[in-house]
């Protein structure tokens, strides 16, 4: 590994690169899927490869290979310089990178107790099958899908400046979904666990971090209640949004909107841009004064957490929105230098050895209010509204204005109390209106760290895991759609 890095960096130095980095990765993943307690799909993969990225005459050049020898590393290094040369005539923005201290030979390992790749597959299948059978045994549950996605990333990074990092992180995402089918009516309904994915080991499924028994025990009754729940009357409602749902709204309407590469137009042809343009930094009223949102890659067990990013930057925490106002962006070294923002906050990431690092999302989290209300107190403050739990469908436009979300469960709130489920509910809003309508956020004890494995961005497409923490929050007067009426039925 180090011989490869030395050989590649030596070669690009000879070829005149201003900057170069060498990255070797091993990514292990295992996806287990059970259908009605039986294995439907099980795949175990490992991707090993390396990449050389250069800035040569002010232009990026990137190449990746799979043969793990110093000779192959030199060939790929030469290819990276060649790519830069082909690209040079159509590059009018010389690439410069923000300064960063050198970290000579540092290591970082994410915290976990049991590496899921050390657990026998039979034990994993056994646990998922047992949980599936528990659900299938309940009245009204016709089918159960159980899955567990597991990833172990190992990254080695070395650059011309002398930084060398070696890192490992582990994450997993267990999920179960129950389905009821009414053949006579030709209808069906589903209810899924809300347990978030986590930067943890197998102990997440066997310990008490999440109340698996409690959640699995209640899914059949929630499913049965949802199947016969009344259809919602569309209109404006006060919402209390649970962290199991709100994390995704944060992801789409804040996380992506505060990526500086998007705000500057670098993702315009694909993922899109952002309404939170750079000229609004420090002035845009993003939401109500109770809104403080941080970016970080340091939260323990966060899905975007790591020690050093793929630009060789030590990771940090910073404010994105303070008291409702836009005060920061997510950066990589290129973006930080381009806009004169000083040091990068460490958001460069490539999802595989074959992809170039781009600015990817940090853990973006809505902070709780010190001494803030409990969930019951938030619900108690609503006369007529809806309590939203669990994520499901999501969609937002390419400037991050108009979004529409559904969920797993929608409970009617009447005079401060939950009054049974509703169905066919979607909430739709414009980002700044929605966050502007946020009247209260829960206290620290209501905070939940959630997130996703599958955030997509860039061309070629890259997938990143990202964490989002938040408390429940109260929103006033949000537009509710009836999805059956939307479908013209």
């Amino acid at each position, binding site marked *: 590994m180090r011989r490869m890095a030395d050989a590649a960096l030596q070669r690009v130095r000879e070829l005149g690169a201003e900057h170069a980095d060498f990255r070797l990765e091993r990514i292990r993943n295992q996806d287990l899927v059970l259908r009605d307690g039986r294995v439907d*799909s*099980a795949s175990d993969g490992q991707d090993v490869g390396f990449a050389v990225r250069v800035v040569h005459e002010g232009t990026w050049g990137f190449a990746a290979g799979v043969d793990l020898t110093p000779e192959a590393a030199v060939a790929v290094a030469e290819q990276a310089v060649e790519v830069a040369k082909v690209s040079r005539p159509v590059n009018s923005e010389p690439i410069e990178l923000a300064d960063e201290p050198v970290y000579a030979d540092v290591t970082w390992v994410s915290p976990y107790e049991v590496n899921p790749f050390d657990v026998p597959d039979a034990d994993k299948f056994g646990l998922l099958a047992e949980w599936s059978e528990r659900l299938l045994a309940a009245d009204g549950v016709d089918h159960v899908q159980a899955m567990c996605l597991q990833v172990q990333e190992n990254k080695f990074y070395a650059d011309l400046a002398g930084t060398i990092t070696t890192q490992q992180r582990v994450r997993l995402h267990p999920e179960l979904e129950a389905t009821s089918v009414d*053949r006579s009516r030709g209808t069906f309904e589903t209810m899924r666990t809300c347990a978030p994915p986590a930067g943890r080991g197998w102990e997440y499924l066997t310990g008490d971090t999440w109340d698996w028994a409690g959640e699995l025990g209640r899914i059949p009754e929630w499913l049965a209640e949802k199947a016969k729940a009344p259809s919602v009357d569309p209109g404006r409602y006060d919402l209390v949004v649970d962290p199991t749902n709100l994390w995704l709204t944060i992801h789409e309407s804040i996380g992506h909107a505060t990526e500086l590469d998007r705000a500057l137009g670098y993702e315009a042809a694909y993922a899109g841009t952002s309404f939170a343009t750079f000229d609004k930094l420090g002035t845009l009223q993003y939401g109500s004064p109770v809104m403080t949102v941080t970016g970080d890659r340091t939260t323990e067990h966060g899905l975007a957490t790591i020690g050093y990013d793929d630009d060789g930057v030590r990771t940090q925490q910073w404010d994105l929105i303070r008291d409702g106002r836009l005060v920061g962006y997510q950066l990589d070294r290129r973006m930080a230098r381009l806009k004169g923002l000083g040091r990068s906050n460490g958001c460069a990431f490539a999802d595989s050895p074959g992809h170039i690092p781009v600015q990817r999302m940090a853990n973006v989290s809505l902070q709780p209010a010190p001494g803030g209300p409990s969930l019951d107190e938030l619900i108690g403050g609503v006369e007529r509204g809806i309590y939203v739990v669990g994520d499901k469908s999501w969609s937002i436009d390419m400037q991050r204005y108009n979004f529409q979300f559904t969920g797993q469960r929608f409970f009617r709130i009447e005079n401060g109390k939950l009054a049974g489920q509703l169905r066919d509910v979607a909430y739709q809003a414009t980002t700044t209106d929605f966050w502007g309508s946020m009247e209260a956020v829960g206290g620290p004890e209501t905070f939940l760290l959630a997130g996703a494995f599958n955030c997509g961005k860039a061309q070629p497409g890259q997938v990143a895991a990202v964490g989002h923490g938040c408390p429940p929050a109260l929103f006033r007067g949000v537009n509710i759609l009836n999805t059956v009426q939307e479908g013209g039925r």
Partner: protein
Amino acid sequence: MNPQETVERALALSKADGCVVVATERSEANLRWAGNTLTTNGSMRSRGIAVISTIGGAAGVVQRSSVDAHELEDLVRASEQAARDAGPNEDAAPLVEPDGTPAGWDEAPVETSIGTLGGVARSLGSVFERAAGQQRLLFGFAEHSLETRYVGSSTGLRLRHVQPTGRIDLNGKSPDYARSAWVGRSTRDFTDIDVEALDGELARRLEWAARPVELPAGRYETLLPPAAVADLFFYLYVTAGDRAANEGRTVFSKQGGGTRIGERLSPLPVTLRSDPAAPGLEAEPFFTATRSEEGTMSVFDNGLPLRPTDWIRDGVLTDLVRTRAYAEQTGAKPTPLIDNLILEQPGSTASVDDMVARTERGLLLTCVWYVRMVDPQTMLMTGLTRDGVYLVEGGEVTGAVNNFRWNESPVNLLSRLTEVGASERVLPREFADYFTRTSMPTLRVPDFNMSTVSQAS
């Protein structure tokens, strides 16, 4: 070891009831640009080997990006252990037997390079210059890949396929980003891509947008162009599983039990089909899968020859996706997924311009974006319009309208179509990362549900 040697050695090491080995060599090159300048690029090679062991109706799949000769036995044993751990699989079936003489097995993998995009890079130089002079900003992406796949099995399969895939996205914007237009093309080798012509089409569309028009949410007569249709019907295709439908869990489930196969979905004689030999859309002629999925894909079906398949014929649902095992259970024929999709109405020759000319008042979309399922019961989907919603009045484009969030079901749309244009090869906008081989027509829908207004431009 070359890929063929890897496959042969792995098969020789197998102690399972059956074994399939899939070896893939992939090379790709890409260019990306924004604001009239190149941003990122790359030239990459990757490799993969998947060993699928079958033991007593169970399958174990282990994949690696590369293995040395001495690691191969560990890989084969790991897949055998995975099969033992997994237990019997619902989609178990005897492995596929050879069908005819293998072609090209001994041939080496084929590679692409950044040079394939050399013409694009040169054209971009002049196009950037022209765009800057006309106060336009260009954004986009060009990518070419060549994937050579080798499939060998203990039943004697020795299959090889080379799949070229290419695409170019070109997005143009006014300097204030208030106007936006998009064109995209799929290609096998970039010899048929004229970047300057694509830029000319962008310039025309940005001119259309010179007159902005604000419209409220509502139902509008709408022309869905081929790129938008491709994204909607791709989703329909990949969720059209027979087993799930029979279990009452999809839009294709029939009230009282069974599926809607045989039911008329559209009053117009539209056909939705896949054909691995479709001209210009040539796709792998045999089935490969390194994971099973929900009764629509099975690792036991690797190497199955793919035949032309009609999913909808003359407006009637004719088939759904099923594995060999599920076909055996139900007495139907296997209908594996094929890597292309064609929607057409035989005899329809109308271009988008022809259909615009026949429109008294309506909307012409460019593409749809952020398409997600809202209600699988009806396949209600939501998404946004993007990069140009044009107002058509008196048979002409008269301006550009604000964007909308829409809520619609492609199945429901089929029942409301009033006109189908000529089918043409097209690049989907949203799902082009996964699916580029499509031929789609422009569709006229009299009452498309634009649910809310989006401020995005």
